[in-house]
């Protein structure tokens, strides 16, 4: 059987910014299924860092969140030439999906979060925050689609993406995609891209912080937003550290 036929191409919207040439057949066929029973909660922490990754890292999760249940995913992508964390989440009645993602990277790496959130029943809520910090010719992406079916009234969904470019040549892409068929819902999304605040950097320098330290503090504050919903300080610290270590090592 030829693998080439089954591999996605950039014409496919969900793979638009992916490094598809790096894909192997095994990467895309493997979906992990998670079912969360009614009223239960589950949290996934996903770290792709140097030492635990190969050149291509594709993690695909299909998650069914039962009535009144909660699913959380917090992830840091800090390694691999091409890394993709893809989530297909379907929310039952009154279920909640919380996601915080961080991508960091330089060289010519591509690191991305791709989510498809389906509000299949009424009263579901979802909140996604992604922060991308890139340099060199690194790219960070967040492709997030939200589908609200016709009877999923009172859905409350939010998506927030911010990109920070530390050097010319780096890029980030945000592709929010909302398909809403119910009429009584809230769906918010925002995306911004910027650089480090130079007036803050001078202020910090005037207090004695070296350029490396001020950048580290500002980046830490920036990516910290993606982890505020993670109510486990140790885990928060660990994820933050992975991202900051990457920055320290390669910039």
């Amino acid at each position: 059987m030829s693998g080439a036929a089954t591999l996605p191409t950039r014409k496919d919207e969900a793979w638009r910014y992916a490094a598809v040439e790096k894909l192997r057949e095994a990467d895309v066929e493997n979906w992990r299924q998670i079912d969360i029973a009614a009223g239960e909660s589950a949290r996934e922490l996903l770290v792709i860092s140097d030492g635990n990754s190969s050149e291509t890292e594709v993690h695909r999760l299909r998650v069914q969140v039962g009535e009144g249940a909660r699913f959380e995913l917090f992830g840091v992508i800090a390694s691999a030439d091409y890394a993709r964390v893809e989530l297909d989440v379907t929310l039952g009645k009154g279920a909640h999906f919380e996601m915080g993602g961080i991508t960091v990277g330089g060289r010519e790496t591509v690191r991305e979060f791709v989510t498809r959130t389906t509000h299949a029943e009424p009263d579901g809520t979802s909140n996604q925050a992604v922060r991308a910090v890139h340099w060199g010719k690194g790219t960070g992406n967040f492709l997030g689609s939200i589908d609200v079916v016709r009877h999923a009234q009172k859905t409350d969904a939010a998506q927030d993406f911010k990109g920070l470019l530390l050097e010319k040549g780096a890029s980030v892409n945000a592709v929010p995609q909302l398909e809403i068929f119910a009429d009584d819902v809230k769906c918010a999304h925002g995306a911004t891209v910027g650089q480090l605040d130079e007036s803050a950097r001078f202020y910090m320098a005037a207090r004695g912080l070296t350029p490396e330290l001020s950048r580290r503090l500002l980046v830490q504050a920036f990516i910290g937003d993606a982890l505020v919903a993670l109510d486990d300080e140790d885990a928060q610290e660990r994820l933050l550290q992975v991202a900051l270590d990457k920055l320290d090592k390669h910039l």
Partner: protein
Amino acid sequence: MLKIDNLTAEIDGKQILNGLSLEVAAGEIHAIMGPNGAGKSTLSYVLGGRPGYEVTGGSVDFRGQDLLDLEPHERAAAGLFLGFQYPVEIPGVSNVQFLREALNSQRKQRGEEPLTGGEFLKLAKEKANLLGLDMDMLKRNVNVGFSGGEKKRAEMVQMGILDPSFAVLDETDSGLDIDALRVVGEGINAIMRDANKGVLLITHYQRLLEVVRPDKVSILAKGRIVRTGGPELAERLENEGYDAVMAEPA
């Protein structure tokens, strides 16, 4: 301690400082007054090394070092403190973390041991008390949500913690009500009135100078020092205005 000689500087190709010369000895508080647009803030930014402010001539000697040769963070480590007219907000970074990192970064540059968390908190509490700033404010993010007066108090707490040998304070009194002005002024006295320290106090108004008595007062106009005198010069400016005082032969 600080010797500025014939300094010229420009921003965006526009010359702002036109041969400014000024000397501040150790133990001295030197006030700079001047009309709007005279170059007061430019002087403080040039001394702090802000990017975009280009020195085109002259020299600045700070305790025997060529100040202009140092990066901004090196100037801080060498003992220079720049008080901002508009302190910058830094969301996501607490005052405590910011100041501890700043102090330890300075200490490291000077080859000194870093302070531990406990040592630092003790120091921060002491200085916050001195300036009447609630310790809870220091746990909040740097200047975020602070009123104008709180920002200026926080600047002085930072100065107390970092304990510089020389402070350039750019309109530290702006935005302060009378009570806050007194607290900040007394803070400056407590932290910087010292035989081994110096202050360049840039201000618009005489009021702060009633609390922080300057040893010398200079008038800055059109990018140069046009007159230097004692504290009585500030009083005359307040009463008679810049035009009248500057119109007299020096």
